[in-house]
Structures are given as C-alpha cells and as structure tokens.
C-alpha cells in the first residue's frame, strides 16, 4: 500500500510541526491502555460464575469432580496476559526497530493499529469461547507487538521535527502512554457496565468496542503524521556544526550501537531507574496501608495510586522538557541522587508516622520513574544521532522488560521474607527501600561513566549522503506523480 510509504509522508512547505505531537498521542494514548488492563481481571474471573468465580480453591484442585467442571480463570492465570504483552513489547521494539525507522512512521502506526485492534478482537473470541490461550495470543502476543511498534513509531519523527527541543517532543508522546490508562480505565468500566446482564459478563463486547475505537483513533494518527523534508529545520534554528562534549552531530548505525559501552550503560541506567519505580508502583496501595495501618484506608490508598499515576504522567513531560535545558546526563543524575535520598527517607516517614511526607516522597519518586522513560530517547539522540534513534530506542526497551521482572520480584520476595522472619508489617518494606536506593547508586556510577561515543562507530559521510539522496528522490517522485505527500 503506497500511501503508507515514507515518501508519501514527507511534509510539504508550510506544514505546521505542531501537528505531529497529536499524531503521536493518537497512538500512545491507545496503547497506554495496557496500564489499565487490570480493570478486566476481576470480571474475567467471573465469566462462568457471573456473580462469583467458579475457580476451585487450591485445596480442591486435586479432586476429580472439581476437575470435571468448567472452571473460571484465576487471577494468577490472568496476570500472565499483561506480563506476556510487556515481554513482547520489549522483543518487538528490538526486532522491528530498524523496519520502523526505514519504513517510516505511517506504516509503523498503521501496523500497530492493525495489531492492537486485532489483538482485542482475538481476545474477545477467547473470552467468548472461554479459551484463555486465545487471550494470551491475542492481547499478549499480537497486542504486545502493537505495543512495541507503536511505542517507538513516532520517536525519531518527533526528534527530527523538534531538533531544538527533542526532550519536550518525545516527552509529550511518552506522556500519552502514561495517560492512556486514564481514558481506558473509566471507559472500560463504563462499557462493561453497559454490556453486563444478570446472566452475562460483558468483557468480550467491551474488547470489541475498544478494538474498534482504538483502530479508528490510531488510524487518524497514522494519517496526520508527517516526516520533515530532507534538510528541513525550524525557523531561526541553527543546528550545531560541531559536536559538543555529550551531543554528537554524527549518526551511529542501529546494529553498531549495541557494540558501544554507552548503549549498555544507558540500558543499565534505564533498567535500574525503572526497577526502582516499577517495584513500588505495583505495591503502592498495599504498602501505604501496611505502613500506616488505620490511617490510610483502602479507599484512600486507591486515591493515592491515582495520584501516583498523575505524577507518573506529568513527570514524563516535566523531566523530559527540563532535560532540554539542563542536559540528559544531569537529569539522570537528579533521578539517581534525589531518588536515593527519597528512598532512604521513606522508612523514616513510617517511623515518625507522617503520611504527607510518605506521599510526597513517592509522588516525586514516581515522577522520576516516568521521567526516566521519556528522557531516554533524547539521551540516545545525543549519543547516537538522529538517524536510527527510534530503532536504538527499540533495542533499549528490553531494559524495561528486564525491569518488569526484577522490580516486582525484589519487592514481593523481600516483603515475604521479612514477614516470614517476624518483621512487623509496618517495617516490612524498609529493606526494600534501601535496596532500591542501592540500585540508584549503581545507576549513578553508570551515568557518571557515560562519555561521547567513539568516532569509529559513526556512520561514514557517504552512508548518510546516500540515504539523504534516496529520501530526496522519493519526495520528488511523490510530487511528480501528482500525489503530494502533504495531502
């Protein structure tokens, strides 16, 4: 389909670059639904039992008569859906990164839309037929691929449109990923309410409606996205002629990037920052109630989680925009140093019984967790250049997959260990906080070691000239064929 080609998305003269962030947000707000998938967990445990789950208790699982009955799905079995999706986010962004970069943002966004909607439709069939493996394949595998491709699809395009403020531009899109859950969560609850009857739980129908809505929304994004014409630059912007200490003017080929120590140092920085954040994000509700028994109720804890997600989203825009002024390396230094101080303070807030100090600590921590995600594309652009930054970002997202395993494991395992050894619930998280602080010390050292990439990894001028000539030729061909790219 030629309308998906990169050459058909090259902007004509007079195109307003501020049209590109909404295009990116169309995709990120949709795939950000992943963070809200847990709203389906409870209803999906009652698809057969309707009013209550028919899943057997653990002591019943060996009984023959229980095994002969059709059982509802359990929460642990459903938990795998999200885990599979996040795993394939990392895998697909790494595998398809180069394809996304070379095929252009429209092809990538359109593919992500097809996969995302297709994943919902297949999951709806899985729910209707009560076949959990179909949901694993639908939402987990196909949806996970959509997450990976969709997440990286607008990154390099935004950086090319906003060379003067790359952090702000990518921060805006990645903020959308954090904000997607805000829309998906109440919308899903409302849709399920509409489709649920006394004899039926409306999860399958909700999946179908969400699939249709998201497909249309992402399609709009793919239609309005444009890449700048070769040589385009914002009015009044003078690109730096010479590389500065930590901002290169050269490009590194995607498959050369992981041969550099800088790639792995930034991989570790992201992994450690996300591990520290993700571990407490999932446990925030329980942790707040156990650290302040009787003072933070389950309702207040739910409010706390909501507040954290607002700071997670806001932090993505704030920190990435700030990094345009203070530099990426300094921004990550702030994450590591301030994070270290705050993690060390959290146990103290429990000791002195200050709920407000506890809440403030976690809100800042979680803003930096979001900021870690949104600042990293600009950090990669500074290190490896603009040309393959989206694909390199895709490779780096494997750090997220790794952190998704480490973070919750550390928090959950340590809590269980502490409780088993007689530590009071209110103090069961103290060691965890100190370990998270320790991880940030390692992150600080990694960040300190980041230096400019050795010039032997830079693409040769003739490689870049060939690619630019090819792009210019494609743009010219599109115009001569009477199909203006900016239409």
């Amino acid at each position, binding site marked *: 389909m030629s309308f998906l080609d990169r050459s058909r998305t090259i902007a004509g003269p007079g195109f307003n670059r501020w049209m590109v962030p909404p295009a990116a947000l169309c995709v990120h*707000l949709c795939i950000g639904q992943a963070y809200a998938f847990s709203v389906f967990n409870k209803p999906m445990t009652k698809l057969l039992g309707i009013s209550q789950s028919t899943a057997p208790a653990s002591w019943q699982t060996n009984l023959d008569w229980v095994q002969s009955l059709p059982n509802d799905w359990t929460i642990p079995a459903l938990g795998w859906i999200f885990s599979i999706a996040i795993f394939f986010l990392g895998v697909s962004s790494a595998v398809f990164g180069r394809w996304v970069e070379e095929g252009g943002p429209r092809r990538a966004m359109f593919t992500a839309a097809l996969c995302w909607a297709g994943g919902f439709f297949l999951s709806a069939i899985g729910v209707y037929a009560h076949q959990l493996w179909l949901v694993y394949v639908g939402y987990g595998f196909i949806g996970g691929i959509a997450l990976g491709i969709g997440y990286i699809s607008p990154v390099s395009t935004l950086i090319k449109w906003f060379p003067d403020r790359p952090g702000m531009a990518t921060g805006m899109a990645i903020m959308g990923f954090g904000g997607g859950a805000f829309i998906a969560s109440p919308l899903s609850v409302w849709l399920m309410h509409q489709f649920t009857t006394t004899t039926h739980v409306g999860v399958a129908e909700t999946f179908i409606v969400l699939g249709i809505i998201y497909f249309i929304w992402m399609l709009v994004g793919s239609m309005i996205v444009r890449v700048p014409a070769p040589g385009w630059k914002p009015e009044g912007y003078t690109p730096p002629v010479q590389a500065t200490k930590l901002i290169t003017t050269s490009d590194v080929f995607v498959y050369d990037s992981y041969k550099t120590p800088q790639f792995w140092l930034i991989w570790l920085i992201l992994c450690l920052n996300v591990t520290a954040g993700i571990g407490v994000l999932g446990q925030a509700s329980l942790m707040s109630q156990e650290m302040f028994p009787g003072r933070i109720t389950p309702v207040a804890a739910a409010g706390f989680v*909501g507040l954290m997600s607002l700071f997670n989203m806001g932090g993505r825009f704030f920190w990435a925009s700030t990094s345009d002024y203070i530099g990426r390396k300094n921004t990550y230094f702030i994450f590591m140093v301030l994070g270290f101080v705050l993690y060390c303070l959290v146990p103290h807030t429990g000791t002195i019984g200050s709920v407000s100090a506890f809440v403030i600590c976690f809100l800042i921590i979680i803003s930096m967790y979001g900021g870690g995600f949104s600042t990293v594309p600009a950090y990669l652009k500074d290190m490896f250049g603009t040309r393959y930054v989206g694909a390199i970002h895709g490779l780096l997202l494997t750090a997220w997959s790794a952190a998704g395993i480490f973070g919750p494991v550390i928090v959950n395992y340590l809590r269980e260990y502490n409780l088993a050894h007689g530590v009071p619930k209110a103090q069961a998280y103290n060691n965890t906080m100190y370990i998270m602080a320790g991880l940030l010390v390692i992150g600080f050292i990694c960040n300190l070691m980041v230096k400019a990439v050795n010039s032997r990894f830079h693409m040769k001028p003739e490689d870049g000239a060939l690619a630019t000539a090819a792009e210019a030729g494609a743009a010219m061909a599109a115009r001569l064929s009477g199909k203006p790219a900016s239409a």
Partner: protein
Amino acid sequence: MTTQSQESTAAVKLLLAWAFVGIPLIWGVVQTAINASKLFH
C-alpha cells in the same frame, strides 16, 4: 487571500488534531483526579 485562507485552514486542522487527543485526555485526568481526591478525605 489564498495564503490567508490556507493559514486559517491549517489553524483549524491543528485545533481539531489537538482537540481529538486533548479532550479525552483531560476527561481521563479529571476522572483520575476525582478518585485521587479520596486520599485527602
């Protein structure tokens, strides 16, 4: 005249694009803020 009408069309497109993503996002943020306010009750 043509340039002026092109500019105003572009401005409308820009406004529509931002409204398309901004309105749902603001609605979601408000819903979340209402839930979050329970922390202070």
